[in-house]
Structure formats: C-alpha cells, structure tokens
C-alpha cells in the first residue's frame, strides 16, 4: 500500500470512525481504477480501452496471455429507443482488447433475468451482427451446466454455470445505470446474470429473497477472478434499470477491484458510494482486492472524477444518496 494512500485512509478513518475502527481499516489495500473519457461508441474505442488497461491493470498482458476470458455484458431487454444493454460495440472492442493482450479465447456469456430467449435478445441488441463468430462464442448462462458452491455464509448450495467457474477471467462489462431496488447497477450487480434461470427461474427470485444487496456481495465474493469495464458512454438515469432515461455520460471505468470500480462510477453519477448498501457491505467484509470504496483507498488514474461527473436523476427512495 502506498504511504500517501495509507495516511489518507488513516486520516479519513480517524475523522469518521472510532480509533478501533480506524485500526481495523488501516490494513486495507488501495485499488487502482481508470476513468477513461469516451464520447461515442464509434471513435477509437479500442485505443481508449488499451489506454485504460495500461492504467488500471499494467500486468494484464502477462496475466491474460493464453487464458480463457469471458465477457459478461448486461443484456436485460431490448428497446431500440433506450439504452438498457451494454452496447455491442463496446463488447466487440473488449473482445479485441483481450485478444490483443494474448488471450487464448474470448467468450461472451449472459443469463438475462426476465427474458428466456437469450440468443434472440443478443440478436436484437445487435451482438450477433457485429461480433464475429458470435454463435460459437456465446454461452447462455441460464441454460449452462452447473456446479454447486457454498454460499450465503455457508448456509446453502448455490448452483452456478460451469463456464463461469471454469474460465480464467470473468470481465463484468456492465452498463452504468440507476436501479430502482439497488440504487445503481454497475459491475457488481451485473453478476446477477450468472445465476442460472433454469435452476432459479425468471425473474431470479431467490436473489431477492436472500436480499438484493446480500446477493450482490455474495456473488462477488464467490466470483473472484474478475475485471470490470463499465459502459458509461451512454448511461441510464431515473427509473433504471429498464425504464430510465439515456444520459450521455461519455465515460468508461475500468479496474480489477469491482467494488472500487463501482464506487468510482457512483461518484461519477454524483451518488455517495458509502451510502450504497452493497458497496458498504463489501467494504466491511475486507476481502483483499474487493471493497476499496473510500476515495482515499482508490488510486484514481486517467481522467479526474470532477471533470466527468454529473448528477444522475434517481427515484425518490434514493434521493438521500446524492452527493452535494
């Protein structure tokens, strides 16, 4: 941990918490997050992602070489008048990025929570049209073979797709959106899509019964071989994740620590990540590499948050999350 960040964390902890709390927090590592300006899906997207990767994960070439990488976009429903899903052009650029980094293969996989015809959804959303060999690269996570893992404090078996558990790296290629139950859906919430509908149904009601916030944290505690790339080029505000309003935020956020990436996204949306329950909980668990959400714990690279942040409209339930 860098001395500057350590001091800043200690100072912040001292201000906000008791001495005992501060002592507990001090061993936390910093996480690196890159904020990349990208005003459109058309111009130099791959070079922007390469730039982001150099900042966010300098060791990526060595770590990714000859590995199987899985891109997990956010595919929910298709409506040509809005921006519900991760844009396929960004997913294509991510695929090219990881192939350039030396990945052995790059899969694309999703398991939507409402719609059963995943292939058709991907087709409508434009994935099949622009991604080469899409039919050979795409895995419907709702229908994949599964393996059980212990979850929810070891209290139950959770069946997850073998493809997710077996690949070397899962990249959450999420959409930056507000969310009417969880405040914001970003790279961590995106993992709801890995829970197989064929076992848990449509919608994936189990996750709601266990608690949305708890389930977000739990899935991210299980799926640890991750990297996050959040599509905030055209994001969604208001009553997301489906019926909100598109907003040109012009940003891509990247990093290894999904909680740090999401905390940064929240700040870009002018929401307080320290008040978003699943982010608070993931930080409280102090899992190495997952949960640096305070500003002082995040080594911000690329653009500054101030230069690209803008207030996202939220539903009344989350008005208290707004940053000044």
């Amino acid at each position, binding site marked *: 941990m860098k001395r500057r960040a350590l001091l800043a964390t200690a100072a912040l902890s001292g201000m906000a918490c008791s001495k005992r709390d501060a002592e507990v927090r001090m061993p936390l590592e910093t996480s690196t997050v890159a904020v990349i300006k990208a005003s459109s899906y058309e111009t130099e997207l791959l070079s922007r992602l390469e730039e982001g990767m150099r900042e966010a994960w300098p060791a990526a070439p060595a770590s990714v070489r000859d590995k199987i990488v899985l891109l997990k976009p956010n595919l929910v429903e298709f409506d040509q008048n809005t921006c519900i899903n991760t844009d396929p052009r960004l997913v294509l650029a991510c695929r090219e990025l990881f192939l350039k980094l030396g990945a052995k293969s790059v899969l694309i996989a999703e398991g939507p929570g409402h719609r059963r015809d995943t*292939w058709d959804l991907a087709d409508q959303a434009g994935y099949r049209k622009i991604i080469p060999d899409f039919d050979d690269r795409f895995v419907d996570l709702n229908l994949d*073979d599964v393996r059980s893992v212990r979850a929810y404090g070891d209290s139950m078996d959770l069946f997850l797709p073998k493809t997710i558990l077996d690949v070397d790296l899962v990249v959450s290629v999420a959409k930056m959106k507000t969310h009417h139950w969880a405040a914001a859906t970003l790279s961590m919430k995106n993992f709801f899509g890995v829970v197989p509908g064929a076992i848990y149904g449509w919608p994936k009601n189990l996750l709601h019964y266990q608690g949305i916030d708890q389930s977000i944290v739990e899935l991210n505690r299980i799926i640890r071989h991750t990297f996050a790339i959040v599509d905030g080029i055209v994001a969604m505000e208001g009553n997301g994740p489906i019926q909100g309003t598109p907003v040109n935020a012009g940003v891509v956020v990247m990093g290894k620590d999904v909680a740090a990436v999401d905390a940064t996204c929240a700040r870009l949306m002018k929401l307080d990540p320290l008040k978003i329950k699943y982010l608070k909980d993931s930080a409280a668990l102090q899992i190495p590499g997952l949960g640096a959400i305070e500003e002082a714990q995040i080594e911000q690279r690329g653009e500054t948050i101030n230069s690209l942040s803008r207030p996202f409209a939220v*539903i009344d339930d989350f008005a208290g999350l707004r940053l000044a």
Partner: protein
Amino acid sequence: MSIATFMDSVELRRELLRKNQNADGGWGYFPGKLSRVEPTCYALRAMGSSDPAWSQGIRYLSSCQEKSGGLNPGHGIPGATWVTQLAFPLLKQANLEAKSLESAANWILNIEGAEGGVLQRILYSLGKSKVEQDPRLKGWPWRPGNNSWVEPTAHGLLALNWMKGHAPEAGIRYRREIATKMLLDRRCMDGGWNYGNKKVLGEILPSYPETTALALLGLAASSHDLKASLERAKAHLADSKGTYGRALLSLALRIHGEKVEYETQHPLGHPSRNLMLASLEVLAAKAGKETFLQ
C-alpha cells in the same frame, strides 16, 4: 416455404433430437450438455409416445423424482422445483405407477407462492404496494419458498388437467380457481403477460411474447374471456422475431382455436443449436390440444 420444405425442417429437428438424446435417456439444453428435466419434457412431447426415444426419456424423468414426490431439475441438482408441473402430464401419459403419480400430484398441490405476508397484504389493501399484484392470489413459484410467477403457474394449471384420480377433486378445483385468478390479476394492461409484474413503482410494464403464450396455454381450459389476450398474442406473433416466443405463441393460439401456420425462420436449424427450441418448433408445427390437455 413449401409444405415439403417445412416438413423437412420438422424432420430435421426430430433427427437432431434423436441424435442428441443422452445415454441416461434425457436431453440437455444443448448437444453434449447434461440432461435436464425441462428440455427432456419438451423433447418427449416433440417426439411423441410412439417414438423409440420415449421410454428412455420417461425413465430419465422418473429418475429425477425425489422422495417428496417432486422432480428436481436434473441429476446432481437436488430439490424439487416447478419442473414437476411440466413433467406431470408426461408421467401420466406414460402410465407411471399410481404411487409415483400421487406423490407428484400431492407435491404440486401443496406448493404455492410465498407472497402474501401480513405487511404485503396491508400495503396492498392501502394501495401502497410497490408492485401491483394481489398477494392473496397464489400460483406456483419456480422453487418452493419463493413468489408465484407466470410460467410455473401456467404449467401448474396444465398439470391439474391430468390429475384426475390421483388427487382430491376439491384440491384440484381450489388450486385451479385461485391460480387462474392469479394469472388474470398479473395480466399486463396490453392484454398479455410478462414474467408476472404488470406494474412496478407506478410504471406500467409491457407483456412479452413467450410469457403471453405460456399464460394462454395455462388458461387453455379456462372459460374466462381471453379475447384481449388472444389479440395481444396475435400482435406479438406478427411482430416477434424470436423463435422461442413465436413457437409458443403459435402453439397457444392453435390450442385456443385460432388458425395458425407456424413458419420457422431457420429451416436448417436454429443457429444457437438449442435443443429445447428444436422441440418447440416441432410442437409449433404440429401439436394440438391433446398434447397439453387431457
């Protein structure tokens, strides 16, 4: 497409299913994948009871029945789920021993949605629910302990049609009445159904093709006025591109007496190689009321 070409595409799919029946008798969702109850049920319906694949497939379904009477989704995935409703008509058609049928029927009759807690009912009665649905009306959940949703409820209603002689008549009537009301309560403003929420946080939600079809299948024996829903289904069929939704809509509309000719958009097979879609396309081409109702 000519009739000959269309029949070829049906036979092509049946051949695909024949080739991809696993050694345990079941089918996976995709070639080479482990058997599961859901694709096996659709494959068996597509192949029919006279096909050599039938008895092995039924044996696979039977092997997924747990002590509780319900069926789990597949070997190695314990815990009975909604697939019990989906499989029941096939187990009945296969003349499984009475004890197995009774325990499966009993499991189905005893499982209902977990919604309807005190707070939920109070909020509903005060008009303060975030989700607009009558919590007193329970259908079937995907898994015990969760809420009722459209698809498992539709299959629950279909299963009730095959239970005569294996469960108390009063129990069957009671579940049919409440589950039918539940489906009608969850119907979207446009006349169709989505997974089961018509209005959330004041926002009216649209229906989907596939769930509209499934709800109509579930209501096939109902005497309620479904005109608006059938119109919605026809509109979805005209607009939809997805094979899953189009096949189910063709099936549902035909079972409700509408004249529908299903036309596949992928005569040489669906690019996803999804075996359940192959089964549904066979059913969309030929299945009648007798496939789902006794």
